[in-house]
């Protein structure tokens, strides 16, 4: 049996390695199961993957679930400011009733999770640090995700939407003053050449994005029990690896930026609380308004210790 997995990342990205571990383990199990990986957007564009996955035209993918937030508004909770405190908290979240509810939503679209995982990110400022709400007014800012745009706009920033690949040029020409994206994007797009100050995810971080390895449910259920077991075993190994690497990426971004001479300024507990209050008034509020069961899902997520 051949399964096709599509993703948007390069070969040395952690998310590709996660897919590769699952593929290698499946092959090693000798259960007639081959996973063919189409990396680096070679098959589908990033946001075009969820629909074919849900219709069974694609078997597997690794993607930020919030990309499908327009199809299932509940997914917007997987990229919500201040909902996840750190990677260990994220690891508890994926085993919670909150995630069980989300998986029910996925099942509606004939999609299921094989590997859970969160990646974190931070803020960078062209002229100064972005740690508190008071740093935002008047700044042209690129935010990663709808909920972050709502929160930053609430703090008085001006929002310019663009792909993370455009941040470098936009900062260089002065179109952009500040940006929010993942640790790995900050490093791979060499944003440290353009900014004065970086706020990496540390003890307190606002930006966590859920990026699971998904499989089409019907396709999975049509596999033999041995094949399913092989996939699950590979997934378990990959998930442990994913968590470790996610932590390393944050540390790596901190190291790269400070070695490039960029000022590093962490977010304090008080600043984090202020952001979270602001988020409650802006992004959480908007989420609850547009999502059926939104309040219930939000409460479940906030209840995770």
């Amino acid at each position: 049996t051949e399964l096709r997995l599509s993703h948007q990342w390069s070969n040395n990205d952690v998310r590709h390695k996660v897919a590769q571990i699952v593929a290698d383990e499946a092959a090693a199990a000798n259960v007639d199961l081959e996973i063919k990986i189409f990396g680096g957007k070679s098959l589908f564009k990033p946001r075009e993957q969820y629909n074919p996955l849900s219709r069974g035209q694609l078997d597997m993918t690794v993607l930020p679930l919030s990309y499908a937030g327009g199809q299932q508004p509940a997914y917007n909770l997987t990229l919500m400011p201040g909902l996840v405190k750190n990677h260990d908290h994220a690891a508890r979240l994926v085993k919670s009733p909150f995630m069980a509810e989300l998986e029910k939503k996925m099942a509606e679209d004939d999609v299921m999770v094989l590997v859970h995982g969160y990646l974190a990110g931070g803020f960078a400022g062209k002229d100064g640090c972005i740690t508190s709400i008071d740093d935002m007014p008047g700044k042209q800012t690129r935010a990663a995700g709808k909920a972050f745009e709502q929160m930053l706009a609430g703090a008085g920033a001006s929002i310019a939407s663009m792909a993370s690949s455009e941040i470098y040029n936009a900062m260089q020409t002065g179109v952009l003053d500040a940006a929010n994206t993942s640790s790995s994007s900050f490093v791979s797009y060499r944003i440290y050449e353009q900014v004065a100050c970086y706020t990496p995810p540390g003890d307190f971080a606002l930006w966590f994005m859920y990026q699971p390895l998904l499989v089409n449910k019907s396709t999975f259920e049509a596999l033999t029990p041995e094949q399913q077991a092989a996939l699950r075993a590979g997934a378990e190994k990959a998930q442990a690896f994913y968590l470790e690497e996610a932590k390393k990426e944050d540390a790596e971004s901190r190291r790269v930026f400070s070695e490039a001479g960029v000022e590093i300024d962490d977010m304090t507990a008080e600043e984090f609380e202020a952001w979270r209050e602001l988020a409650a008034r802006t992004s959480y509020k908007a989420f609850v308004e547009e999502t059926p069961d939104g309040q219930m899902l939000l409460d479940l997520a906030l209840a995770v210790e």
Partner: protein
Amino acid sequence: MDPLLLGALVAIFTILVLFSGVSVAIGLLIVSAGFLMVFDGMRSLELMPEIFFGKLDNFALLSIPMFIIMGSSIASTRASADLYEALERWLTRVPGGLVISNLGACALFAAMSGSSPATCAAIGKMGIPEMRKRGYPDGVAAGSIAAGGTLGILIPPSVTMIVYGIATETSIGRLFLAGVIPGLMLVGLFMAWSMYSTWRSGNLAVISARTYSWTEKFEVLPRVLPFLAIIVGVLYALYGGIATPSETAAIGALLCLLIAMIIYKLWNPRDLWVVLRDSTRESVMILFIIAAAGVFSYMLSSLFITQAIAEWIGTLDVNRWVLMACVNVFLLIAGFFLPPVAVILMAAPILLPIITTAGFDPIWFAVVLTINMEIGLISPPVGLNLYVINGIAPDISLKTILYGSLPFVACMVLAIVLLCLFPGLATWLPDAVMGPGF
């Protein structure tokens, strides 16, 4: 089936379908649907409209119609005549002066238009009749404009550079800058050839048709100002932190439309509609090919052909310059038959990994690719510039145009060789302006 064998089958089938006279975009859809149906199952056809839509779902594509509007709005005024007249008055004493004025006008116009046919049409409408009137042979008149017009896609802005930038995720700002010096170099080569051939032919009668006084020379200069204003305005928006390259195109389009309306009094709704009609026609044609070529490359990737070819070339142990020569021959042949955007979109995903693995710079390669595409624009059977010349001067035979443009093709081949010897010609300016980065 082995992906490489399948790839060969796709190539043969594509050639057959495209040669049947079906339009290129629809032909690509036919080939894609056929292979997806047979080798991926009926269900993959369901995805085709979704992929088609997705390929167009890109903000950078906006700049294509915008840069085309820039060219066609200015082309429909007397602006290109002014430009042409100014150059002529200053260059009248130079051997081949009129040809050189035309080439210079093409180069300047190319700096405002993203498309080659538009450049060709704008200058050719004035230039070809004038050159013939002054006794230049038909071949020289038509050939120089056909070739000069191709500069539209090398000198920024450029529609093909935008498409390359999107397909390979390289910075469009950088690509634009990379085309400047090679573009000027090519104009220089074209002019040098024109001077030499006029001098050699000994046909000096055509040179001194008339002379102009210094007053006459200076009084035309203000009429070139709108051109300079547009070029400077667009450059400032692009590199001065006002807008991204795709947004700049909109500023340029608005600026050109306004200048055409205010300075050149292009008020008549019928004339304005002609500008819009021509721009829509060319843009939709290009965007249709872009979307269809996107579906085609999905098919290649889905059947693992793209990946297999890249792997196979990787295992070949050939000298990188031999590889580059092969790539150039391939591009040249593809350019004979297909319009530039189709070649770029079909070839870039396969060629780029090969090129970068062999240690070539993707920005540099964009310039080499573009010059290859320029040759394709003036070679049959699909040479967009040839159609334009044919529309302007229907009584000049295709053969005459072709023979006339052959020396300029030689100049383009020479330019590719020079770029291979001195890659800095393409890479120096982007590095100097934007710093070594993306």
